[in-house]
């Protein structure tokens, strides 16, 4: 395989591994703050117990996010030296602001949040929890500002082949940023909502039915039920924004080869990149035009308008369908669960099992959506400014391949360990509760 494909695969592997953990820790930090504030106001120990269970999972998730994030900061240089050489004047300050305003704050206050509760007042501990949450969200703000700028670059001029900033506010709040940021933050919320609901349902099914478990189950379920319709609406807006700025990406997502009016919404198709057509296409007539232009006969530009300058169709076409499919499932499951919880105060066993099965559904939707937007930018690294091939390093492909194998083995092991430990903590929590009783929190070493 050639070095470019390997470098991209390696970067994608690291990104995919990394994104799993911030996606959880960003929203989980806010949920923990919610648990803590509820405890501060109600003094009901169920909130404290919920906090104490989920803070362990937060610590584990955060650690995985940090170490995989360090990997990213190095791979910008090892895999894409041309990126910083050409657009470093823009990307640099955005990354610097992420490190300065977010990383140190979250890492330092995490120490106090996790281990300082006996050494500081409850007030300081609450503030530390708040600052960790603010830090994780600020981090998302800066990195998505940069990512969005790479999709819709504005506010700069090219001088002697290098990008120079003209207007920083335009760079940060570039056209796709508000949509992408909102979409990703809600995705984090949904991922966490299903994680909390799923793991709580898992405990509940195993007979661990304390107040704290039911409270967490409700928090997760209602959060999911509220967020999912908002996400569908925001996702639609994000799609319209992409149509305006990156029509080739939309054409690939919808599998539209020829520019047409009243384009169908394809439910199934096997895109054929050689023949530049779809096989076995099944679609809803005029569906794509209706969704994307909000008119039955709206015109959508086809891929043939962008020959040589559009991404591969298959991953985008299917990535979008996986993301939307999971989203629809989320809507169905969260609303049925919320309805059951409101009406019967508990879940039926079969629905609880489905909620357990959906525990990590947010990961699938997030990664699928991330692939759509990132692969959709190809062949560019910075849309219309720098191609991925021009940014690649000339490191020998054998070296990339061997380190890739090393990273992959490590990542797969760690994902397996993470899921297995999370489930183990959930099972162990019950034993702990039986030993110590619910009111007294059990002591645990970190």
């Amino acid at each position: 395989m050639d070095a470019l494909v390997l470098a991209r695969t390696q970067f994608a592997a690291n990104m995919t591994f990394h994104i799993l953990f911030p996606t959880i820790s960003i929203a989980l930090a806010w949920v923990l703050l919610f648990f803590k504030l509820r405890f501060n106001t109600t003094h009901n120990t169920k909130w404290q117990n919920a906090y104490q269970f989920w803070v362990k999972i937060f610590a584990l998730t955060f650690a995985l996010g940090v170490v995989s994030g360090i990997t990213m900061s190095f791979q910008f240089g090892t895999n894409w030296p041309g990126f910083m050489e050409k657009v470093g004047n823009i990307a640099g300050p955005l990354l610097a602001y992420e490190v300065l305003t977010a990383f140190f704050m979250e890492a330092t206050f995490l120490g106090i949040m996790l281990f300082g509760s006996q050494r500081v007042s409850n007030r300081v501990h609450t503030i530390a929890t708040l600052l960790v949450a603010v830090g994780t969200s600020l981090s998302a703000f800066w990195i998505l500002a940069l990512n969005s700028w790479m999709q819709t670059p504005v506010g700069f001029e090219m001088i002697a082949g290098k990008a120079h900033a003209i207007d920083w506010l335009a760079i940060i709040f570039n056209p796709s940023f508000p949509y992408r940021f909102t979409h990703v933050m809600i995705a984090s919320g949904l991922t966490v909502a299903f994680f909390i609901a799923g793991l709580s349902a898992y405990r509940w099914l195993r007979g661990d039915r304390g107040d704290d478990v039911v409270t967490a189950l409700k928090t997760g379920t209602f959060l999911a039920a509220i967020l999912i319709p908002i996400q569908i609406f925001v996702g639609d807006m994000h799609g319209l924004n992409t149509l305006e700025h990156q029509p080739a990406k939309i054409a690939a997502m919808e599998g539209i080869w020829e520019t047409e009016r009243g384009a169908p919404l394809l439910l199934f198709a096997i895109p054929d990149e050689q023949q530049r057509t779809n096989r076995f296409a099944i679609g809803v007539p005029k569906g794509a035009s209706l969704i994307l232009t909000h008119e039955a006969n709206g015109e959508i530009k086809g891929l043939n308008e962008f020959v040589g300058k559009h991404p591969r169709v298959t991953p985008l076409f299917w990535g979008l369908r996986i993301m939307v499919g999971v989203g629809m499932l989320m809507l169905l499951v969260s609303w049925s669960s919320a309805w059951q919880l409101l009406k019967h105060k508990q879940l039926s066993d079969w629905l609880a099992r489905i909620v357990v099965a959906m525990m990590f559904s947010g990961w699938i939707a997030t990664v699928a959506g991330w692939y759509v937007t990132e692969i959709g930018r190809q062949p560019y690294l910075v849309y219309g400014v720098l191609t991925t091939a021009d940014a690649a390093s000339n490191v020998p492909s054998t070296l990339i391949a061997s380190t890739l194998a090393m990273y992959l083995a490590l990542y797969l092991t760690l994902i397996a360990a993470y899921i297995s430990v999370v489930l183990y903590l959930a099972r162990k929590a019950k034993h702990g509760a039986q030993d110590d009783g619910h009111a007294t929190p059990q002591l645990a070493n970190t």
Partner: protein
Amino acid sequence: MPDLTQPSGWLPLVFLALMGVAMLAYVILDGYDLGVGILLRHADDEQKDMMIASIGPFWDANETWLVLGVGILLVAFPVAHGVILTSLYLPVALMLVGLILRGVAFDFRVKARAHHKPWWNRAFYAGSLLASLAQGVMLGLYIVGFKYGLAQIAFGLLTGLFLAASYALLGATWLIMKTEGSLQHRAVAWARSCLWLTGLGVATVSIATPLVSQRIFDKWFSLPNFILLLPIPLMTATLFALAYLFLRRLTHDASSGNERGLERWCWAPFACSVGMFILAFFGLAFSLFPYLVVDRITIWQAASAPESLKIILFGVAIVLPAIIGYTAYSYKIFWGKARQLTYY
């Protein structure tokens, strides 16, 4: 040297200083917690928990200094960043694997099933050692200007060993300060053996650096530089001797059960070790200046555009004092002897 009254002249200097501060902070701060990881193998199970407890609240923020240091290299000197990191591709990858392993082992070891704990302890040790060795190899290859001959690689491996030993010294002296009882006594013995390797390492790098480049040689061994710079090796030697004497005294106190004596001077070996790190760092920085890649790329050749550096400097000026402030606050909260880590 370009016109220092112009932004394109002085901004790279400011960022070099900032990067230096970040790298030095990283080497010292993550140095002690990597060192604790390296020493973990030699402790019994109860001591292992206490060793990890002593670094628990800090390691995460400590590693962030690496992200800042590499971040400044990336954003302020993008050309050098590309050259340095692609030349060090393999050791960087190994270091990252090491950092990942130890970072996750820190959490997994107490959250996974009890019988898995020894495996995560091993991963914590192996990851710490691998990351330290890899950083040392990177330092060695950096000093020889990324030439990959047999001698250069051998030198890189040697600096890898020395840096790991120096981190272990920082870790051991940190433990002397932060723990008590049998673990503290043990840490004194560890520190004594690591001190010699550290001294040998500093001497080796100090001798090798001028030999790599005529320019560096002339910088040190010309008048009046030689006399002006003499305090650096002299002070290093003094700190080394002080560390040795303090450790000998502490060994004596430990064996005679003089706990008050131990408490009185338990901070001193750590302070001496940090001092040696700072001096060695300045010596190396002086040798290399103004080059980012030895005798190839200067800071001015590698620097980003002034308008980008200005916007970062603006942020740094506001945020860095805050970072230093709350870092100090965190160390104040966890001041004194380490206690077992509990979430509540």
